[in-house]
């Protein structure tokens, strides 16, 4: 339990981002091993590992890999979702910049297991450094015969492409990502059961595996050490295996990426990040801005694991863990979050398009002292009209933080509405406030 550096073991070493340095640390042993295995055996190892999607939803990875038709009738594609846009999350950025070969090797293994022809790494547009690092690494891999035709003499061909997004949070949603990759407007597409799963008909209507950066980077370790070994990590939890990188930010002394074994307590994670800065712990958003906020009491006994965090009232999400100290005004924090989602709604469906803006308008009114009795209930109602009704998960993600904060910090909302000002009145608190609205929503 505690910090366990698996993916990030060599991330401090610049040489690890070069092929020679990577191989010196045992890189590409997994691919060599995988190419000698049966395809199904690779998938079975991943199944045994209990690996779940690290992008936020925690879907079992092997099911996606196993869902690709074994009887290949045309091209199969792999997509790496590197559009890391969830506020508070910055793990994929570091992985791509410091351990690009892990991702490339992981995708090649996944590609081999699913008879993939090509992989696309869809990188958030702002991550230019990550794209550059990957470009360099992919070029090296091609030159060394680790990508392209006849990889390592196995007869397996696999091409890897980089695609930079154009700055939309929504494009991190897997179906919107596919639309964007195909050159369409970045809007989500229909999903199962309305249309077949992406593993049957994904990008360009072909079978497609889509996983997060962190998920793919786990694959080499699973192949090298076996699925059962991987599953031994986090064995204390109900159904969370392996390690998870948490991007710790907020009022902590040492913000940064921390890789922990599942089963570690949230407070241990805080300890790793140097503990609270500038005041006592008030709240934590453990898995990226869209997951429900927790108060200090909830944080206290919380164990990091998919089911365990749900019991504690929140989610592991993407691992964007924000700790907030006692000087934080929750109403302002939620207002800022609402602003983000209103700005990032793609506009496709009614609940998200209209609802996120309405939420923001109400929050702005409350923030500017115009709160009215009944506003809390109205916010809750609007959230419930968005949650589960929107076309894709962005609507849910916009509603949860607001509904969650009202549930846990209702008194702060009530106070703000009644008095027209925050319950938190301290010099530190005033310093935290943005000087002007960060993003204007028309």
């Amino acid at each position: 339990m505690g910090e366990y550096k698996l993916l990030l073991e060599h991330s401090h070493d610049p040489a690890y981002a070069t092929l020679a340095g990577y191989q010196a640390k045992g890189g590409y042993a997994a691919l060599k091993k995988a190419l000698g295995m049966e395809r199904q055996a690779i998938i079975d190892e991943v199944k045994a590992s209990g690996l779940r999607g690290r992008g936020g939803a925690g879907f079992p990875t092997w099911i996606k890999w196993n869902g690709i038709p074994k009887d290949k009738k045309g091209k199969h594609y792999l997509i790496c979702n590197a559009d890391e846009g969830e506020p508070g999350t910055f793990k994929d950025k570091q992985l791509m910049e410091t351990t690009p070969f892990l991702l490339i090797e992981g995708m090649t293994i996944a590609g081999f297991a699913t008879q993939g022809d090509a992989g696309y790494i869809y990188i958030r547009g702002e991550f230019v450094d990550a794209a550059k690092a990957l470009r360099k690494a992919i070029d090296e891999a091609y030159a060394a015969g680790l990508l392209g035709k006849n990889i390592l003499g196995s007869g397996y061909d696999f091409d890897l492409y980089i695609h930079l997004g154009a700055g939309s949070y929504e494009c991190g949603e897997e179906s919107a990502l596919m639309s964007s990759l195909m050159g369409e407007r970045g809007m989500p597409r229909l999903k199962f059961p309305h249309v077949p799963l992406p593993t049957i008909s994904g990008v360009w209507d072909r079978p497609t595996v889509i996983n997060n950066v962190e998920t793919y980077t786990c694959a080499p370790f699973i192949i090298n050490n076996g699925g059962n070994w991987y599953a031994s990590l986090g064995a204390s939890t109900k159904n969370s295996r392996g390690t998870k990188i948490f991007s710790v930010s907020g009022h902590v002394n040492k913000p940064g990426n921390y890789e922990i074994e599942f089963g570690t307590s949230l407070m241990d994670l805080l300890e790793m990040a140097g503990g609270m800065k500038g005041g006592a712990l008030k709240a934590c958003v453990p898995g990226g801005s869209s997951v429900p906020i927790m108060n200090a009491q909830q944080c206290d006994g919380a164990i990091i694991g998919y089911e365990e965090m749900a019991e504690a009232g929140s989610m592991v999400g993407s691992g964007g863990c924000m700790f907030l100290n006692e000087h934080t005004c929750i109403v302002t924090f939620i207002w800022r979050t609402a602003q983000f989602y209103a700005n990032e709604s793609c506009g496709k469906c009614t609940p998200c398009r209209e609802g996120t803006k309405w939420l923001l308008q109400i929050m702005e009114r409350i923030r500017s002292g115009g709160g009215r009795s009944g506003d809390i209930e109205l916010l809750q109602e609007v959230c419930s009209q968005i949650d589960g009704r929107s076309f894709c998960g962005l609507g849910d993600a916009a509603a949860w933080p607001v509904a969650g904060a009202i549930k846990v910090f209702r008194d702060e909302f009530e106070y703000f509405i009644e008095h027209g000002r925050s319950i938190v009145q301290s010099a530190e608190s005033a310093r935290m406030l943005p000087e002007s609205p960060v993003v204007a929503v028309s």
Partner: protein
Amino acid sequence: MAAVASETVNLVINDVEIAVPKGELIVESVKRLGLEIPIFCYHPRMKPVGMCRMCLVEVGFKQPDGSVRKMPKPQAACTLPAQDNMVIFTDTEMVHRDRKGVLEFLLINHPLDCPICDRGGECPLQNNTLFYGPSTSRFIEVKRHAHKAFPLSKYVTLDLERCIQCGRCVRFTEEISGDSELAFRFRGASMQPSTFELRDFTSKFSGNVIEICPVGALTNREYRFRARPWDLETKPSICLECSNGCATWFDYRVNRLVRVNGRTNEAINEEWTCDRGKFGHEHYNADNRLTVPLIRRGDRLEECDWPTAYAAILSAFGVGGDKVAMLAGSSLSNEGAYLLNRLFHRKFGSANVDYRRTAHTLPPDEAAGNAPTAIADLELKPSILVFGNSPADDIPIIFLRIRKAWFKHGARVVVAHHGETEADSFADVVLRYAPGTDADLAKGLVAARANDAAGVAQAAAACGVDESRIREAAALLGENTAIVTTDSLLNSASGADAFRALRQLGGELNRYALGANDQGFADLGLVPGPDGRGTAAILAGCADGSIESLWLAGADPFAFGDRATVEKALEQVGFVVYQGTHKSEAMGFASVVLPMAEPAEGDGTYVNAERRLQELRAVLSPPGEAKAAWRIGAELALRVGMAKPYFGAKDVAAEIFTQVPAFRGVAFGDRLN
């Protein structure tokens, strides 16, 4: 998303068990039980998108133990395909709450300008709000403000405040018309439909987006503020602006045509209209309509009564034989054309009658049977060759079918034309040949089908198309190909030869007529007999004095003939009857002017390009003393003692059915024999 009919699945909808085709969308399945799910973005003729969330229903699946496991979230019925054991709930508290929620969301930024909105009274948003919406809004913030009355094009106005972002208009231009001129820009609450960089919306089918818009965001610039829907009367009509014969609704008020909307006819236009059809009916209300007969006295045309006009005409045409002639205009009804044709042949003893306006004509034996493919059947053809015309201009609704054949059923399309056409965008092969080399290209295609390399090379050299292209095109053609040509090919000198060559290509060769009832005239035999003169010869005869009296029955020779030739002909000919709806240049040459009703101002039957016989019942009454074409013919027939009196167009039609072989036994709505 046409369902596959062969396999059915069992659904339970609100406790009622029902078998529906597998994969049918739930929004359609519920209709089988007489239920309705409210919708905005869903349109049965376009791919479902699930954007508006109005159609959310609860969905469950029957478990082996007989219980029902509900899905945690409500599902959009418009995108959900029917599966076995599916259980649908459209009437639960949750569904009602969700509908209220979506409508509240849609209304928070929707202006309350229904009292001045064109859509008010026939607005899906109003209707759904009334039936399913909340009675009040809890929204007290500032509404979204955006452009009001932004002119998107000559015909369409966009009110962005009213828009509910359902994407119907955008999808129409992508899926149906294919021009993709509309798209969404910006995102979230600022998302709005727009043309690229706010350029003009130039689609030839732009009017349809007005009708499919579920709010008053897209309105008709011609109709704007002219009426409220509840003030309008409406009757079914047929569009006679071209040969397609689309079904329309004529909305009118106090005997004045106010607007034209598409009416569903699956055989022809489905529910679409082209802009020419939707916005091209202003001539009904024009100021220069003819309302009384006129007769020439010296250099003036003076008002007279009908008997005077008829007497003058009959006396002038009494010479008969080769010295008299008639040109018919394309929107004359079968009845009007039939009676005048009979008058010429039987009474005046003249075969100088014609309706054709092309520069060249086909010999009679080659002209027959020219539309073997029904419009609706085009959709199912594996390959289509468009030859020598721009279908979006000549035959717009047939163009939509050709596009649908490609878009929905994967037909391979070859477009051969000397200019650019809209169909190029989805053609497998585009053959752009030098103008006038139609026949060379057609022969080249035939040669390529016969593996005649020399023939292909020769054709390629003559028409300036790559040999490989010709071969590529020919490889796509076969016995099941529909060849789509129009009479416009006959404006090319080599057009007739091209037809002959195309006939050897196999497949179904269609030569669609261009004028509204041209096909009817062809089937009625409104063409010069062996001793008669055709259009060009008639005009020449007028000019050289061999024809003394000319009857322009709805025809305006200035519209199609060479100006100098027409002017000379009309100046030289002794007596001109101008039977028309509007004042025009040709009227200035008239000896007698007969005011004629527009098609929808009288009863009549028409034959469209695919030889479908359609009945048009009078919607409006004609202005002043104007008369329907059949009545003019009937009154003249009576005057010359030709027949028993006709009391209505129906009597004339009944005679056509017995006298004209092509019409024998044909019911309205069917294609001619």
